[in-house]
Structure formats: C-alpha cells, structure tokens
C-alpha cells in the first residue's frame, strides 16, 4: 500500500516535472529560433537596407543640438534611399564617452560618432578609429574631375583639420581620423555695464594681459547695487587654458614632440607665478578659487564678475539667457584671449569620425560628408554653440549675423590665425595630473607654483616609469584562462554532483533536495553568469594592461606589475587610500554613535514620533547626485551655509575643498555622511524594539539609572546589531564615490580622491582597466581584512543569543 501511494505521487510529480521541462525546452528553442531568425533576417535586410549607428552628445546645446542632428540625419536618409540611420544620444560628453567605451569594449561601436580633439590621440593610438585619408583623396580626385559636391578640406580652417591628424605619437600631423564639425577659439566674456560703470574702455581684439589685469583691477573697485564687491575676472585654470595662457607668454608645458616637460623653464614658471599672484596676492582682482560653486562659466551670469574666461563659444547659449539691462540683466560681449609676449589661442574642436571596424565605411563616409557639409554647418552655426569649421560658412551671415549677442563674432575669427591645437600626450593621465596639480598651485593655492610643478613632475614620472609587463609583454593567454575557467566550472559541477550523491538516502529526502536545487538553480545560474564570471574575469584582468576600450584580445599579460606599482610606488593611490581611511575613521564611529543615539531618541513615545522617524530616514532615500550638489553649496567656503553659520558663532570656517582640504576635505564628507544615518538608525530601531521591556524594568528596580541601563542593557543586547551596522558602515565608507565624484571630482589635487573615485578615474577616464581591476581586488582584500578583524575582536563583546529566545 505505501509503495502504491509513493508510486502514484511519483507519477504525478513526474508529470508535472515533465511538463515544466517541456516548457523550458520550448522556451530555449524559441529563444534560439528567434536569435537565428533575427540573424538571418538581418542578413536579408542588409542586402536591401544598410543601418548606420550614429552617436553624439548634446551638452550646452541641449535639445536644440539634438534636433539639429536628428533633422540632418533624416534629410540624409531621404537623400540616400537604402540607408537607415539609428541615432544615439547618451546626454552630455561624459555619458557619451562612457557609453562609447562600453560599446567599443563590447566590439559593437557606433559607425559614426563625435570625437573631441583631446581624445583623438588616445583613440587613434588604441586603433579605434578608421583613417579617412583614402576617402579624402578620392574626394579630391572627384573634385578635380569637376564634382562640385566633393569634400574640399581646403575649405576648412586648417588647424581644425590638423587637430584630427595623428602620426602615432602626436596630434597635428599624420593620418586623418575625422572631419571637424565645428570648433571654437577662446577668450574672455565681459560685462559691458560694469565696464561702463568703471569708466574703462571695452577690450579690443588685440588687447594684452596688461590691459586685462588693469581692467580687472579697475572693475574690482566697484560695488554691486546690493553692496557686494565686484570681482574683476573669473580665470579658469583648466589644463588646456593653462597651456594656452603659457603660449601667450611664449612658454610651454611640454615640447612639441610631447616628450620633454618644459614647465620648469623660467618663462613658464614666471607666467604661472604671475597668474597665481593675480589671484592670491590681490583682493578681488580674480575670483578667489576658494569657492567651488563660484567657478566656471556660471559665475558670469550673476553680474558680479566683470570678465570670465578663457571660455570658448560653448557658453553662448546659456549667456544668451542673460536678460537685457531693462529686465535686470546686463549687456555682454566677447574678446579673444589677450596677448602677452606672444600671440596665441587654442582650437577646441569636435569631429565626426568613424569606427575602425565599421562594416559600412562607404556609407559612413557619405554620412560624415553630409554632417560636415555647408548646410549642416550653417544649421549648427545658428545654434551659436560653436564656429563652423568651413571658412565660407563661418564668414557668412549664418555665423556672423549679430542679432543675438555676442556682437563680436569677428573676435573668435580674428584669433584663428594664431590659434593652434593644444596637443596632449596620448595617455590621458598627463592631462589629469597636469590639471590637478596646476589647480592646487593656481586656484586653491595650497601649493606654491614651485611645489605644484614638483608634484606634477613626481607624479608624471611615477606614471611614465611604470611600464607594466616591461617593454614587450606577452599577450594574455586567453585560451589557458578559458581552460582554467572551464575547469573551475567543472569543479563546481563536480562539487554539486558530490553534494547530490552525498544526499541522505530515502525517497522523500532526495526528492525534497532535488526540488531545492531546482528552485535554487535560477539563482545559481544568475550568480555564475553575472557575478562569478565578471569577478573572476576582473581577477585575470588585474594582471593585464587591458585598456577597457577595445577587445580583450588587445590586452597584454603583465603579471603582478599592477599590484606592485599600486602598493609600492603609486603616490596617488596611497593618497586616495589615506583619504579614504581618514574618512572612515571619522565617519564610521561618529556616524554609528549618532545613528544609535537617534534610534534611542526615536524609541520615545512622543506624539508624532512616526513623522520624526520618517523625517530622519528621508535623506537616505534621496538621490545621491542631487544631494551632493546641495552639499557642495553648504560646504562652499565663500557664502556656503556652513561657513556662514560658523561665522555667526565667531569661527572662521575652513576652506573645506580649498587650501584646507588636506585636513578638512575628508571630514566634510564625513559630516555629509552623518546626514544619512537614517538607514543605520532604522536598523538600530528594529534592534531596540527587540529588547524585552522587562530587562529595563528589572534593571530599574535593581537601581540602574538611565545611563547605566543604556550601557548595561541596551548596548549588550544590541551588540549583534551594532556589529552588523559597523561592518556595513566600514564597507560603505570604502565605497564612497558619488559624493566625491559630484562635489569635488577628487580635487584639489588628490585630496578628496577617494579610493573608488580613483578606481573610476583609472578605469573610465584614463583607460587603464587592468590597473583599476587590481585596485578593486586590493579594495576587496582591505575590506575583507577589516571585516575579519572586526569579527574576530568583537567575538568577546558581542552577545549573539540576545536575538534568539
């Protein structure tokens, strides 16, 4: 009889299982069929219709730029039947490059896309772009044969074209990798109303730095209507602007061959020291650089800065939003960069380029031609965002038409003859290190020019001297690693099988277990696919020099070089580790104490306590980026909420992210983290509610006051929760990213460059994924060790059973 029953059940279970298996098989077959069908269909469609993918960004141009590209592409489709264009616009330039990197790493880059001149050397040296010289040659031939629609590079400003030439080591000559779509020169935007108030003449197109500083000083004597002082000028110290400024004094940061650092030469040092003195030795001549908000193009909008620059044309769309003087705004115009001992300007430009491996080079070229033709350029010119690269369009009313400010469009064009492309070494680290060290010397001023230069040299040398894997590293033995991977998978499967075999005998137990594995299998597969595989891959990658852009096959094997460099030589890494540790030491203990205190307060039976609980938790659910921007205002050292409050109680607040960043940068982030104690508080609250009330009553009768009850009852009873929160907080503190990324970007120098931020910089901005992977593994080890230490040392004081009954 029992056998019979088991048999019946077996049959039933079998039927259900068979059905499930059939459904699963059907799904798999259907999926394969669909993929196959799509692959076939695509091949079919290819014969009839070509699909091009185009990717671009729309930064300052916003929706309008988006629309211009869209219109242009649709017109192209209409003119070229059989070609369809898919457009991608990830947003601003930052998102664009992140997406591009992802697509390239996946081996599916867009066919045609924007490339900023500053990335050209990097992209070209990574062999990501297709040279277009053959097409250009063909166009020339066509034109010679009388084809008027053929592309004529001679019609473009030569500097803009040269910006997309790369000879294997430097930009400016060599193979052409794109057609410039537009460009800008740089200069200063000035507030005409303030110039009139100061009684000084407007800048001319051939003004000098002496004129500039005299005007800035005169402007700084003014007071705004509300009594606030007027600042002479905003002077941004972005790397490209610093280098352009140096050229106006006949100096250079690096020689033309991009080999020799020239920043230590006397005229370079002198120029930098002059700039530093203007900012730091004179009150009100230049914006102080103390404030992180009051910097960049937007300071000009407030009307309390006489001049702002050096900026290119891209600020114009937002400056056009400045109301007329009648509506409380002011009049403004543009003047090209002043000259010093030399005349110089820079060309900042963006091209349309094509991916090296595009399957449709002919159509891509056609599209690039279309997107850079006179009509497209004229449409772009109306946007005001940039200068057309085609001379005829730039000098046409489409650009020069002065119904909208700035009136001095000629100023941009006048600068062109002296303007050159600022070539950067292909390794983007140069620009980043240069930027962050110059920032400290020139803007925040916590280093002297001399110190900034020394730091730049030291960091750059460390970087250059590090050649992972030596001169000729072997390629990664992917076949061996796949074999190891498959072996690992096999071992896993074997372990699994062993587990099954070891299963307790007996029909019921085995059936139950099988059901268990069946239910867990989606998770197991998910884990293997989406967690275990990437984790193990990153371990392999950490021993390669993979750039994170381009195929994995391009990676070389460098062994433990990345680790050795990180641990023994990379000063930036050491700084980032120290910053993070400093932060953790402040944020974790104080934050946890605050959270516990808040939880204890929230335990009180007060009317409306639910509201307060919600209110305290609220910050934890707000979006990190928006919150970070708010906190940037709070910590602003000039007029920031916090420093104003400190001022009221008679304390001079530090320059959190300025010259005091070494001592106060990490603490600022810690203070910010205290705002987010709500999450921990909720966990503590749940723990507190688990403590039996009788324990408190017993302690009360035993004569313990509130303090003693807290330390003798609450803390021990809560100890497992405290341990949990502590470990979570320690892990969290090593993962600080969003706040730092948004608020400071790691600046000044590397003083707020948290561990993960540096990791991000390395992986996604400096294209060193192998190095970043090594950092990730070191981070894992650090967190593992810290957690282990905490667990070990806490075993004696944590009372686990308190949550059990």
């Amino acid at each position, binding site marked *: 009889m029992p056998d019979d029953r088991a048999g019946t059940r077996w049959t039933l279970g079998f039927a259900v299982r068979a059905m499930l298996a059939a459904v699963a098989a059907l799904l798999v077959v259907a999926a394969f069929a669909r993929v196959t069908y799509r692959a076939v269909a695509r091949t079919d469609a290819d014969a009839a219709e070509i699909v091009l993918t185009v990717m671009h960004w729309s930064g300052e141009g916003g929706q309008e730029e988006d629309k211009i590209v869209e219109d242009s592409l649709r017109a192209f489709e209409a003119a070229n039947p059989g070609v369809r264009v898919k457009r991608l616009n990830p947003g601003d330039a930052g998102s664009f490059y992140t997406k591009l990197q992802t697509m390239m790493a996946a081996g599916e880059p867009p066919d045609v896309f924007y490339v900023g001149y500053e990335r050209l050397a990097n992209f070209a040296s990574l062999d990501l772009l297709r040279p277009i010289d053959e097409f250009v040659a063909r166009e020339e031939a066509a034109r010679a044969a009388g084809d008027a629609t053929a592309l004529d590079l001679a019609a473009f400003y030569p500097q803009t074209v040269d910006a997309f030439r790369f000879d294997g080591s430097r930009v400016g000559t060599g193979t052409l990798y794109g057609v410039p779509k537009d460009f800008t020169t740089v200069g200063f935007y000035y507030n005409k109303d303030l110039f009139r108030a100061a009684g000084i003449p407007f800048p001319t197109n051939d003004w000098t730095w002496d004129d500039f500083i005299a005007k800035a000083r005169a402007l700084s004597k003014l007071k705004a209507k509300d009594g606030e002082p007027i600042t002479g000028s905003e002077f941004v110290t972005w790397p490209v602007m610093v280098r352009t400024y140096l050229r106006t004094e006949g100096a250079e940061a690096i020689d033309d061959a991009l080999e020799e650092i020239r920043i230590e030469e006397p005229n370079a040092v002198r120029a930098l020291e002059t700039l530093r003195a203007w900012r730091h030795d004179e009150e009100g001549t230049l914006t102080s650089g103390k404030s992180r908000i009051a910097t960049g193009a937007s300071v000009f909008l407030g009307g309390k800065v006489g001049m702002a620059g050096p900026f290119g044309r891209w600020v114009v769309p937002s400056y056009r939003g400045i109301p007329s003087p009648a509506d409380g705004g002011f009049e403004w115009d543009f003047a090209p960069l002043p000259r010093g001992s030399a005349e110089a300007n820079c060309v900042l430009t963006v091209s349309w380029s094509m991916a090296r491996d595009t399957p449709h080079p002919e159509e891509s070229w056609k599209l690039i031609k279309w997107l850079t033709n006179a009509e497209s350029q004229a449409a772009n010119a109306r946007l005001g965002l940039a200068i057309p690269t085609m001379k005829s369009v730039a000098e046409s009313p489409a650009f020069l038409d002065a119904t909208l400010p700035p009136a001095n469009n000629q100023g941009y064009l006048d600068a062109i003859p002296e303007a050159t492309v600022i070539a950067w070494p292909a390794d983007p680290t140069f620009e980043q290190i240069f930027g962050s060290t110059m920032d400290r010397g020139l803007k925040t001023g916590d280093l002297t020019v001399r110190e900034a230069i020394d730091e730049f040299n030291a960091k750059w040398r460390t970087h250059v001297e590090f050649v992972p894997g030596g001169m000729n590293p072997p390629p990664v033995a992917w076949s061996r690693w796949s074999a190891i991977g498959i072996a690992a998978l096999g071992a896993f499967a074997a372990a699994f099988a062993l587990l099954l075999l070891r299963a307790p005998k007996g029909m019921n137990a085995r059936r139950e277990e099988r059901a268990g594995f069946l239910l867990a299998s989606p998770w197991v597969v998910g884990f293997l696919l989406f967690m275990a595989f990437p984790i193990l891959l990153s371990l392999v990658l950490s021993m390669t020099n993979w750039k994170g852009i381009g195929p994995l096959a391009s990676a070389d094997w460098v062994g433990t070089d990345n680790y050795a460099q990180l641990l023994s030589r990379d000063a930036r890494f050491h700084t980032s580790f120290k910053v993070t540790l400093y932060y953790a030491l402040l944020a974790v203990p104080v934050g946890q104490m605050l959270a516990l205190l808040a939880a204890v307060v929230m335990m009180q039976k007060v009317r409306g306590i639910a509201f307060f609980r919600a209110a305290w938790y609220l910050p934890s659910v707000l979006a990190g980026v928006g919150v970070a921007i708010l906190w940037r205002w709070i910590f602003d050292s000039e007029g920031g909420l916090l420093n104003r409050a400190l001022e009221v109680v008679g304390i001079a607040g530090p320059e959190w992210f300025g010259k005091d960043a070494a001592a106060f940068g990490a603490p600022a982030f810690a203070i910010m983290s205290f705002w987010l104690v709500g999450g921990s508080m909720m966990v503590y609250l749940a723990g507190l509610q688990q403590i039996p009330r009788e324990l408190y009553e017993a302690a009360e*009768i035993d004569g313990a006051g509130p303090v003693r009850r807290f330390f*003798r009852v609450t803390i021990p009873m809560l100890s497992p929760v405290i341990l949990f929160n502590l470990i979570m907080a320690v892990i969290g503190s090593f993962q600080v990213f969003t706040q730092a990324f948004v608020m400071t970007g790691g600046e000044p120098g590397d003083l707020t460059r948290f561990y993960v931020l540096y990791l991000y910089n390395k992986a996604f901005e400096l294209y060193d994924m192998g190095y970043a992977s090594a950092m990730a593994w070191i981070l894992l080890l650090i967190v593992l060790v810290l957690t282990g230490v905490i667990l070990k040392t806490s075993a004696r004081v944590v009372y686990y059973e308190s949550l059990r009954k």
Partner: protein
Amino acid sequence: MATVTLTKVDKVYAGANGAEVRAVDGVDLAIRHGEFCVLVGPSGCGKSTTLRMIAGLEEITAGVLEIDGARVNDLPAKDRDIAFVFQNYALYPHLTVGENIAFGLETRRTHRSALAAALSGAAGARAAETAEIKTRVAEVSKTLGLDTLLHRYPRELSGGQRQRVAVGRAIARDPKVFLFDEPLSNLDARLRIETRTELRMLHRRLGATIVYVTHDQEEAMTLADRLVVMHKGKIQQNASAQECYDLPANRFVAGFIGTPPMNIVDGRVEGGEFESNGVRMPVGRLMAPRSCALGVRPDRMRLVRPNSDHSIAATVAAVERLGDRTDIALDSPWGRLLARVNADDAAHVRETDAVGVAFDAAHVHLFAPGECGARI
C-alpha cells in the same frame, strides 16, 4: 519585612479614541509584615497593574501607596527597596548567573568605579565592598542551589534554574518587599508544583513580605496567607484562602475559587426552596421571595437514584475518572451540572444513564443576581 498599604488606589489609562480605561479601581489593601499576599484573578483584572504600581513601574493615578507607613507614590522604583520577579524572569542574557545575582548589588555599591576609588584613596573600601558582594552572591546561590551554576549563562539553564536565578537576584539585595508577577507560569506543571512548595518554604525562611500575582487560583490558594481576588479592577474578596473557598463573598469569587468550579444556577428563592426551570430544591432557611443564584460545589453533589426526593433528574453527559474521584457532567433542567464523587460511588455510572442529583441544604451558597452578586 515591611507593611504595604494601598488606599483607594486607581489606575486609569488613556485608551483608544480618548476613552478612559480604569484598570484598577479603588483598591484598598493592607498587607502585614511577613505576609504572603496573593493577588488572583482572570487576565485583565488589574492584579498585575496593582503589583507594578507597588513596584513603581507604573504611576499611581489616584490613591495612596505606603510601604512601612511611608507614602511612596512618587518614589522611583529603585528607592522603594523592593524586588521584582518577572514572569519571563528578565535575566540579563549577556551576564552569568553570578553577575545576574550581583547586578543589583553592583549598582548600589558606594564605590562603583575602581579608578575613582583608587584616586580618592578608597581602594580598600572598594575591595571590601567587592568581597561583600561576592559573599552575598555565594550565600544566595547556596540557598537556592545555584552554587554550581554561577558561571553559566541564562541560555544554558533550564526553566526551573532560570526561575531560581530570578529569585536569587531578588533576594540578594534583601529587600523589604518581594513582588512576584506570575513567576511560575513558564514552568511545566510538575515543576510548577515543586517550585510552589519551595517558594512557600523560602518565604518561611526569609519571613519576607511578599506580594504575588497569579491567575492560577490553585497556586494562589496553596501559597497565600492572604488571598485577594480581583475582577474588573476591583477587589472582590480579601481573606484567607480557606475563607474565600468556604464563604465566597460574591458570585464571582465563588465561581473563580475552587477546582472544578462551583455549579451556579440562576433562579428564585421562596420560602425554604430554590426554584429554577420548574425544579425546586430546599435551601435550609426561610427567605423572602427574590431572584437569586444558587451555588453548590461539585464535591458536595451526590448521585442518587432517579426520582428520589429532593433530587434533580439528570442524564449523564460525560464521565471523567481521576482515580480516587470521578467527575460526572450532567444534563439537567438546571443546565449542565458537575458532580465530583468518590470513584467507588461512580463505578457503575455510564454515559447516558438517567440519575438523580442531590445536595445538602447546608452546602448551598446563595448570591444576589448579577456577575458579582453578593453573598446572601
């Protein structure tokens, strides 16, 4: 040893929707030195609230609480010199048995901090204090048979051992009054009876004043010098256990005290007889006609031949044989009645048998109508 006196004590809670909940209503109670006073009643009767007010864990809404003649209404719990044993013992799970027992002594020591004592030159005094605590803990644990468990944690103890630790923690401080809040209800039946006896013996040895709360009337009766029966926040009867059993002050007490509970039937009394549902039984005294309730304890019921004089015709509904006695549930015109008879007398009684039920008029209790109708 101390006296505890409650005078017109009220406890009013703010209930839902602003309604007032009167948990304790005008309680008057005088507990003498060394008396074992048990508050008993169904759950929600206010007995625990009363105890917690004595302890100082609940505020007294109105009335006066005196310990040893001094008003202590506003004295915090720790200054009332009382000890409290909780139903779930409330042992500190992170402390050993010894530390649990010493907790109250530690909090009360003069030199709490070793460092402060050393700095103020009182290190010697502190050491003496420490030794004193140690001795006291040893003493207490010996009394309770806990001396081998001092270094165990509560989680390693059985229920009975934990209960003893809770008692040990209470007696360590030698307080004036012990308060027990259902201390035996988490033990199994056998252990409960054993511990009950131990508690009784402990009381005799300590001679302490004890206020003890339980909902178990049997436990209450076995322990109490004075039994206080509570219902709906009011004291129903305050007397010795025997008196509560023999002469229940009202219908509630009659029904609550005694196992199995008293048979109580609503009806009328007229002349010397009680009548309900057409069936009359003599009550042994002449009374003016009035409606009332008649009560007879099951063990005063006798089974007689059907249709005997002064008996009630009934059918046996259930027979429960307890060995020496047998409980017989009967369906009668007076409703369901329970008779507890000698096993020998009921040897042949079977379910569905027709029988007669009788009782002596001397064993009749009469109560005024209503849930808490007074004894007539």
